[in-house]
């Protein structure tokens, strides 16, 4: 069987055809390039420029080029402290969300029929179509002083007076953030777990591997893209998160998003933009440092 040029690729042909085709192959990215490249980067161009300007007392942006807005982030200790805390919180939530979602999704894909998988996925995601604010308020009613948990604990006689352990502090922010992040982690994991061939685990055990060895050396490497995606979906949005800390965090559970938003709501756009950009730059740095783990290139010719 001859393989003509233009009839798909084989490993032997791959390099040359790849190069000739590379430009033509990029066309599907054009709509995304428009959205992300033009709309997003164009919008951010404004904000980057503004971050170097000043907001005057009349709330106008004055092109008084300066780096004061950026310097403030590093010289006023509050911001670095809060940012550091936000990174820790985001990491903790990511670990917890993954630890919660992975067994759940594994069970779903491995032991549940295809039809019921879809039903359960929907059952997981549909509640998240209700208002975020309402859900967070509901959490308040659970964690609060007169909330469900306290009433339960008092009813069971475990405590005499309502505890404030779960309210208006970092713990409540943590719990609610895990809650809201769960469906994103689960969906990201579902996508890659669904494609996994569970027969390989049996084969491994057949060859003498312990179950946990099989998981570690066979399952995890293959679903690694899914795990990384889930991590990004949970970790990254928390950096900009401000609503949950306000509603359930009290004065203790403040995250950097709150501080940045305060500037925008007071029409201090220059300051707010500068801080947001510094934060984004730092997270980008993190992603670059870990880029080896974030490999996107196609691993061709496996097996």
């Amino acid at each position, binding site marked *: 069987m001859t393989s003509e040029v233009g*009839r798909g690729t*084989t490993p032997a042909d791959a390099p040359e055809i790849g190069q000739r085709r590379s430009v033509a*192959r990029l*066309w*599907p*990215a054009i709509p*995304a*390039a428009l*959205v*992300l490249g033009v*709309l*997003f980067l*164009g*919008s951010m161009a404004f*904000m980057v420029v503004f971050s170097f300007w000043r907001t005057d007392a009349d709330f106008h942006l004055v092109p008084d080029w300066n780096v004061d807005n950026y310097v403030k982030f590093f010289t006023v200790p509050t911001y670095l402290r809060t940012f550091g805390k936000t990174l820790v919180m985001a990491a903790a939530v990511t670990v917890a969300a993954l630890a919660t979602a992975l*067994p*759940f999704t594994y*069970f*779903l894909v*491995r*032991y549940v029929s295809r*039809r019921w998988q879809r039903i359960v*996925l*929907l059952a997981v*995601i*549909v*509640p998240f*179509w209700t208002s975020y604010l309402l859900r967070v*308020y*509901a959490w*308040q009613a*659970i964690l*609060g002083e*007169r909330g469900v948990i306290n009433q339960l604990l008092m009813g069971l006689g475990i405590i005499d007076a309502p505890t404030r352990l779960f309210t208006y502090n970092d713990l409540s922010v943590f719990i609610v953030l895990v*809650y809201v992040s769960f469906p994103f982690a689960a*969906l*990201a994991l579902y*996508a*890659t777990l669904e*494609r996994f061939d569970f*027969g390989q685990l049996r084969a491994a055990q057949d060859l003498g591997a312990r*179950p946990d060895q099989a998981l570690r050396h066979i399952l995890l490497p293959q679903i690694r*893209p899914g795990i*990384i*995606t889930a991590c*990004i979906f949970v970790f990254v*949005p928390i950096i*900009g998160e*401000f609503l949950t800390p306000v509603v359930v965090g009290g004065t203790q559970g403040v995250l950097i998003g709150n501080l*940045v*938003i305060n500037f*925008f709501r007071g029409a201090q756009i220059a300051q707010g933009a500068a801080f947001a950009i510094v*934060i*984004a730059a730092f997270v980008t740095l993190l992603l670059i440092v870990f*880029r080896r783990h974030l490999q*996107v290139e*196609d*691993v061709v010719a*496996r*097996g």
Partner: protein
Amino acid sequence: MSWPVARGIDPIETMPVSPHARATRRALWLWAVIVMAFLYVPIVLLVIFSFNEPASPGLPITGLTLDWYEDALTNRLLLDAVKNSIFVAVAVSILATIIGTMAAFPLVRGRIRYPGAARIVATLPIMLPGMLLGIGILLFLRRVLDLELSLLTVVAGHLVFTVPFVILIVAAQLQGFDRKLEWAAADLGAEPRQAARHIILPLIWPSILAGALISFTLSIDEFVITFFTVGPQLTLPTYIYTQIKFGVTPAVNAIATLLLLGTLLMFGLGIVLLSVGRRVRRRDAT
């Protein structure tokens, strides 16, 4: 791994099952149930609050009433807001899924010089607080493109932060895709486009579905960016969040409950119909 087995039975199922495996399965099942309970407890409370008498949603429950439902269903503004939100979310979900899926291919296979950089650019929108994005997009739409604000500009704004999710999730699945299937198709004479349509897409459907669900979820509850990009229209999140001076009433809980019931019913019906249809077709086929 294969040995002679009756047709239609998965060989895995005929292997002897160790008690170890059975215990694991039970533990996982228990965990799944706990997680579902964790997910639904706040929802149950949310629904209960819609029946609670006081004008401020929350505990204690002083009395039950259907007044808030009456309120919600006669509130023209609220209903308009819901309609607009659904329109935007559906549009965003469809567009983001198409745009994101298309973009995932060149990202993974296009042999771009710096694929990591491309991925990071794709991730940037999610890192930034919504207000920064919202104001930036507003300025860009008005000062550069001189567009009038409307629900369509809202859709554009939402695409900015939903497309990254779709790209990332489809790319992740595409990375692990077994190329041999495509090569086999090519050997059998398929054009790349045919291979894409008939081989790749059907096999990466979980990530496409996940991407669609995620973008819908993100869009239907987005307030900040919507506020800055919407024209003289209301969406449900803007309606809720801007009741700052006066406060939220349980009418909102009522609407949320109705929406929840509505979507669950709709999907439930859809799944039932689909499986009935499949059973009918199978019966006809045999």
